């Protein structure tokens, strides 16, 4: 169970699986992924919120800043990997130097370096699959979300070689009362 406390006024928050509410407000979210909640909040532009979860019987409060931290953490992790590679490279060269002009070990070291290069490429490629995007271009330090590239599963549409002969649709009635109902709905939602 997660509790969400949105402090800013004037947003309609609609998290899948919960009742939509107008902020400020607090709701219980029995079953929702944290990433989904953050995405929803970002979509409507909420900056000031608290996500309260229970961890080992204790209440843990997460705010927007906590998600910024995780981004920095990722950056740090990446720089650590780079640092370790550089260190390893230095060690290997030192070893090569200590071996003098013996051709055999130097060749082995070159091979190892090439293997390391391949490995590092793979690691970097793997990292770039999970693209990190900012939901707001103005807020560069905003929370991070993973962009799920699920569009690739949706088939492409190509009508260039298809041609429709005739029309399969038929008229079955006329729209009635839509204008008045739309006015009423628009007013109710505070849009006009």
């Amino acid at each position, binding site marked *: 169970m997660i509790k969400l406390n949105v402090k800013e006024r004037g947003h309609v928050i*609609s998290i899948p699986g919960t*009742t*939509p509410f107008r902020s400020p407000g607090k*709701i219980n979210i029995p079953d929702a992924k944290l990433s989904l909640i953050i995405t929803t909040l970002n*979509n409507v532009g909420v900056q000031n919120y608290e996500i309260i979860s229970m961890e080992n019987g204790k209440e843990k409060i997460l705010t927007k800043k906590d998600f910024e931290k995780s981004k920095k953490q990722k950056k740090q992790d990446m720089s650590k990997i780079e640092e370790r590679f550089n260190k390893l490279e230095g060690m290997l060269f030192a070893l090569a130097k200590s071996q003098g002009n013996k051709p055999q070990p130097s060749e082995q070291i070159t091979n190892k370096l090439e293997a390391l290069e391949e490995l590092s490429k793979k690691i970097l490629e793997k990292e770039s699959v999970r693209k990190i995007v900012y939901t707001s271009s103005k807020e560069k330090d905003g929370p991070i979300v993973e962009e799920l590239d*699920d*569009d690739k*599963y*949706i*088939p492409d*549409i*190509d*009508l260039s*070689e*298809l*041609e*429709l*002969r*005739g*029309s*399969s*649709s*038929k*008229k*079955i*009635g*006329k*729209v*009635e*009362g*839509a*204008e*008045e*109902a*739309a*006015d*009423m*709905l*628009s007013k*109710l*939602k505070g*849009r*006009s």
Partner: protein
Amino acid sequence: MSEDKIEDVKVEEQPKKNKNRNIVSVGLDCGTMHLVAARSDTNDVKVTRNVFLPVDKEEIDITKLSQINYVKGTDNELYIIGSDAFEFANLFGQAVSRPMEKGLISSKEISAIDVLTLMIKDLIGSVKDKEVYCSYSVPAEPIDEERTIIYHEKVFARILNNIGVNYTSVNEAMAIIYSECAKEQFSGIAISFGAGMANCAISYKGIEAHKFSTARSGDWIDKEAASSLDMVPNRVTNIKEKYMKLSGEVEVKAKQTKRVLEALYYYHEALIDYTIKKVIKEFEDKVDMEVDEKLPVIISGGTSLPEGFVKLFKSSLEGYELPFDVSEVRHAKNPLTAVANGLLIRTMADVKGKI
């Protein structure tokens, strides 16, 4: 996919109150059996059967298709679309292809997305030189089956994007609220008994309090009745569409047909009972608001068309203690067009708020 996609698109870049803008609102009901579209500039509601029949050009004399609607593809591909597909399917002894199954895009017919796009394009009509906004229907996640609506929602989004309209997805049952509950300020409980699913939404003053769907509806009735009588579901569907009445005397003499109608009655009763129980449980478990007024219950969808369906629903409802007060149980004015009409209302309301 956000339900507020319309709010994300282009509108900000347009000059306000520009009377030269040729804005058209559309409501598109993407049903398992029918695709229905309502359009603001013509006020027309149009329908097409959501089926097609792939045939080989070499097997058919194309000159004989002058009265038939079809899509011509490359090589030898030919797809007869809409109601004509049914007639030709019988002629060729084939089964029609359905782009949708159980209320969602069918995984078996993914190659048909192009044909479906053309059918929707034809249904919506011309969008040239117009700024078109469209709300399309999506079901809610089913509570009794492990299925998600994401793929379905995205496929229709891509289709509408391809056609060149601005789109937003709207829950099917909420569309019924928009269409039928203006006098209650969009408060009510709407149940859409479609072919593939029963969709329910609970709305309070236009705010969606809860929505859900069940995987039991018209197709379930046909399948269960057919299974009980050891028949093929198509035959049962045919009898249901021709003779089914849920009130009054059955007007058929053939014993076998009477037996089918009897079985169909029991399964209609079971479906209604099952849906009411789910509405009560969902309301008790998930609706976290105090409703201090009586709510109307609106029944819609193709499965609710047999005479006596609403009466049967009312009498079943009376047997339960409800967690909400009911003002009345009523049928949608037109159960086949209510969703498209409601979607049009929602689109028009969204557009009004932005322009």
